[in-house]
C-alpha cells in the first residue's frame, strides 16, 4: 500500500480574472491541480489557453483571484508581493523561453543573482554557482557575457541560474522555443537529467516531441483543465 504523501503543489478552485475598463477576462477558471515532489509535469494547450497565466501563479509572480494555492504545505495564495518575492527566491527556479539573462552581467553574476536576493553569503554563493555551472557544463565560460554565448549555451546558463539555489520546483516556460532542434534537445536532456536527480519540474510547451519526456501532461483549454486531466499517466 503506497503511503499518502502531501503534494508539493496544490491548487484548489483557482481562477484568475483580469479586469480592464470595459472587459473582464477569465484567464483561468476552477483549476484543481496537484504536483508531487519529484514529478515531471508538462502543461500544454493552444495559444491563449492560459498556460503562461497558470505558470505565473505557480511561480508566485501573480496571485489567484479565487481559490487556494498551497506550496510545500504553506498557503501562499494571499501573500503580499514582498512575501511572494521571498518565497519565490527560496523555492522557485525559473527557466524562460527568452533565456532572460541580463546582458551587462557575466555568466557568474547571472547565476548568482537569485542567491543574492535570497541573502546567501558570498563564499556560499560562489560555491553554489560553480556547482550549478558544472552541472550544465559551462564552468569554463564563467566570466563571459551572454552576448558571447550561443542560444543553447545561454539557455543552459539560465538552467544553472534556476537550479543554483536548489529550489523546490523548476518552472520552465517553453525552454526550447528559441532554440534549434539540436540545442533544444540538449536542454531537454539536461532537464531530464535534473529530474532523474530528483528535481520537480513543471514545464509549459507546445512541442509534441517533448511531451513524452514528462510523466504527466496537463491540458488547458480556454482557461480550464481539459476533461482528460489530472490523470496520472505513468511513463515506463
Amino acid at each position, binding site marked *: 500500500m503506497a503511503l499518502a504523501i502531501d503534494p508539493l503543489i496544490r491548487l484548489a478552485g483557482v481562477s484568475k480574472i483580469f479586469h480592464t475598463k470595459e472587459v473582464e477576462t477569465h484567464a483561468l477558471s476552477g483549476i484543481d491541480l496537484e504536483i508531487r515532489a519529484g514529478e515531471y509535469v508538462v502543461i500544454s494547450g493552444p495559444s491563449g489557453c492560459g498556460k503562461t497565466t497558470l505558470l505565473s501563479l505557480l511561480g508566485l509572480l501573480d496571485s489567484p483571484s479565487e481559490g487556494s494555492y498551497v506550496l510545500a504545505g504553506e498557503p501562499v495564495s494571499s501573500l503580499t*508581493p514582498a512575501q511572494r518575492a521571498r518565497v519565490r527566491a527560496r523555492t522557485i527556479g525559473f527557466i*524562460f523561453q527568452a533565456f532572460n539573462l541580463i546582458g551587462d552581467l557575466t555568466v557568474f553574476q547571472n547565476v548568482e543573482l537569485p542567491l543574492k536576493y535570497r541573502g546567501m553569503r558570498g563564499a556560499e554563493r560562489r560555491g553554489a554557482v560553480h556547482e550549478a555551472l558544472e552541472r550544465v557544463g559551462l564552468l569554463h565560460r564563467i566570466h563571459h557575457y*551572454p552576448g558571447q554565448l550561443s542560444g543553447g549555451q545561454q539557455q543552459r546558463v539560465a538552467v544553472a541560474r534556476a537550479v543554483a539555489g536548489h529550489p523546490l520546483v523548476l518552472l520552465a516556460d517553453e525552454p526550447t522555443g528559441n532554440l534549434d532542434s539540436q540545442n533544444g534537445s540538449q536542454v531537454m536532456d539536461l532537464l531530464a537529467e535534473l529530474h532523474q536527480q530528483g528535481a520537480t519540474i513543471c514545464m509549459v510547451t507546445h512541442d509534441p516531441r517533448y511531451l513524452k519526456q514528462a510523466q504527466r501532461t496537463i491540458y488547458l483549454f480556454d482557461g480550464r483543465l481539459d476533461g482528460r486531466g489530472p490523470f496520472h499517466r505513468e511513463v515506463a
Partner: protein
Amino acid sequence: MDTLLRDFRLAVRSLRRSPTFSLAVILTLALCIGATTSIFSVVYAVLFRRLPYTDPSGILLVRETWRGQPGSFSVGNWADTKRADQLFQHLVPLRGTRLNLATENAPENVDAARVGSDFFDLLGVRPALGRVFQPEEDRPGSDNVVILSDRLWRERFGADRGIIGRSVRLDGRPCTVIGVMPASLDFFIMGEQLWVPNGFTPEQVAMHDEHYLTVLGRLKPGVTRGAAQAELAQIATSLRERYPRDNQERGITLSQLDRELVRGYRARLLTLLGAVGFVLLIACANIANLLLARSATRGRETAIRAAVGAGRGHLVQQALTESLVLALAGGAAGTILALWGVRALVAFGPADIPRLVSARVDTPVLAFAVLLTGFSGLLFGVAPALRSSTRFPQDALKEGGRTGHAGGRDRLRHALVVAEIALALVLLTGAGLLIRSAVALNSVDPGFEPKHVLAGRVSLPASTYQTPDQVSQAFTEIARHLEQARGADAAALVSTAPLEAGGSNGLVPEGRPYEVSSAIDAMLRVVTPGYFQTMRITLKRGRTFTEQDRAGTQKVMIINERLAREAFPGQDPIGKRIACCEPEPDGSPGLKLVVGVVNDVLAMGLSQEPYPEFYLPMAQSPKAAWHWLDQTMTLAVRTTGDPHAAASLMRQAVTAVDRTLPVYNIATMDDRITASLGPSQFSTMLLTAFGVLALLLAAIGVYGIISYGVTQRTQEIGIRLALGAQGHEVLGMIVRHGAVLAGVGLAVGLVTALALTRLLSTLLFQVSPTDPPTFAIGAVLLATVALLAALLPAMRASRVDPVIALRYE
C-alpha cells in the same frame, strides 16, 4: 536641394506627430537662446559696439599720474603739455559739471561738459543741426555758446528745428544755442546733456596745483603710441623740473578711451555671458539625450531605410535636419523672447553701466542669434544623428532571444548627464559665491546711519554768485533755513555726501617737511556743524564743529581714524596741526588744528577700504574751495518718518534764499547705497537665476535618463523581481544608478568650479573664490535634486509587474 527640402518636410511632419516632445525641446531652446541673446546684446552694446566716433580706437585718454596712480590734469599742466607736444593732432581738455538751464520752463539742473573747442573735431562727429565751437569761442567773455545733445533737444525743446540761434540761460548767463549733436552721440563720456567751451582764464592756465581735467588726445597720422608715451614722459620730467612744488612724483600716461570706459564692467558682463552659455550647453545636453532616446525608438525605421538603400550620409542628413528644424523653431522663438529680455535688462540694470540704454536686438545681435541657433542645433543633433546611422539593418529586423539590457547602459547619454551636472555645479557655486558676497556687502557698516536721511544738491551759478563770500553767505543762509525747518530732526550741508564723487587734497602733518613727498592724499568734506549729528557719524575723540568755528577764529579740522593713523601713528591727534589747502597770506603753510576724530565712513563705496578724510567747517572753508567744489553743496536732512517728505523742506530752504535755484539729485541715503550696490546685485540676481535654471535642467536630465533607463530595463527589472528581488532592492538599484551619475558629475563639476570660480575674484567681497561652505552647499543641493529626480522613476521601477518576465514579444 530637393533632398534637403524633402528632409525638411519629413522632419516637420515627424515632429508634428510628437507634439509633446517637440514643444518641450522648442520651449527649452527658446528660453535658453533668448536668455543668451539678451545677455549678448548687453555685452555687445557695452563692450564691443563701436563708439559713434571716427576711429574710436584712436581716441586716447591722457592722464597725469601721482605716485603711479592715474588722476586728472591741472589746467597749467595741460596748457604746457599742449604747447610742448609735437605728436598729437588734438589734445582736448574736458570736465564734467552741472549747470542750471533756464528757459520758459522751470529751471533745471543738467549734466554738462566744458570742453575744448576742437572736442568734436577730435571725435570726428558733425552736428545734426548748426555748427561746432570755433577756437575764438573758447575764451573768457566769448564762451557764451552752447551745443545741445539730441536727447535734451527733444525732451526739453520739443525737437524744435528753429533752435539754432536761440538764447537760453545757463547758470544765469545768457548763451546762444549754436548746434545740436546727432542721437548717435547720446552715449556720453560723462553723462553730459550739453557742451560749453572751457573758456580758461589766464589765471587758470597758470595754475598747476589743481587737478580736475580729463584730457583726450588723438595722435597725428603715422605716430605710434610708444613714441607719444616717450614724448609725454619727457614733458612730465620737464614739468617736474619747472614746477617742483606742484608736480613732484607726477607723470603722464596713455590708454585707449573705449577700453577704459568699460574696464570696470568687462569681467562682470563676460561672466554673465559665460554663465548663460553654460545654461545653453546644459539645455543642449538635455535635448541631445532626448534625441538619442528618440532615435533608439526609431531604430527599426532607420534600419528599413538603410535596408532599402539609404546611405549613411542620407541618414545623418535626415537626422540632422530634424535637429536643425527644432533649433530654428527654438531660435526664432528665443529671438522674440530676447526683445523683451533686452528691455527688461535695460530697465532693471544699474544705470551706471555705460551704454546699457543702447542695448537692443540689432543686426549684429540677430547675427549672433542665428549663429547660436545653428551651433546649438549641430551641438545637440550631431551625436544622435551619427548614432542613428550606425545601426545594422539586420539587427533591427531580426527576431530571436534577447538579453534584458537594451539601452539601459548608454555611455554617451550618461556622459551627457554627467556633463550637465558638472556645469550646473559650476553655475550654482558661482551664484552661491556672489550671493555670499552680496550678503557680506549688505552687512557692511557704512560708518553712518543711512535710514531716514534725504540728500539733494544745490549749485550756485558763477554768474550770480561771483565771489567766495557771496557763495559762503548764500549757503550759510540755506543752512540756517534748513536747520530751522519744522519736520527736520537734524539738517546740515556737506560738500559731498558719502558715496558721492569728491575731490582730494594733499595734507602734511606738522613736523614733516612741507613738500609733496610728505603729503597724505585725503578726501575733503566741507560741512556745517550739524553734519555729524545728521549722518550719525560717531565722534571718537575730541569735539565736533560749533558755531564758534567761523571766519577769523582758530582754523580747525576734524579727521577720520584712517587719517589719524597715517598722520600721527601711535599718537593722540587732538591738538596737533595739519597743513592743507591754501597757504597763509605770508606764504607759510595753512595749518589747521585737529579738534576731533570721527569713525571711518566708507565714502568710496561699501566694498572699498576707508580713505583718509578730513572735514573743514563751511564757515572757515578756503576761498579756493568754492572753485574746487564748483560752488555746489549737498543738503542732508534727517527725519523721523518718511525721509521723502524732507524734499519740500529742502526746496523751501533754497527758494527762501534764491527762487531760481533748483534742488537736484534728491534721493535717500538708503537709495544711494542700494544704487551703489546695483552692479553687484544685478549680476548676482542674474547668475542666481541661471543657477536655478541650470539646476532645473540638470534635474530634468537626470530624471530623463533614469526614466528612460527604467523603461528600457523593464524586462530586466521584471526578471530580477521574478528571481526574488524585493521592490526596495530594485528601487535602490535605480537610485544608485542616479547617485553614481550625480557623484561623477559632482566630482567633475567640483574640479571645473575650482578652476573657473577664480575668474570671479574681482567680483567677490570678503569671500574666497574657493569658499568651502559655498561649494559644499552647491554640491549637496545638486545631489539632493538629482537623487529626487532619480527617485520618481525608481519608484516606478519597483512597481513593475514581475509577470512581464514571462511575456515574450
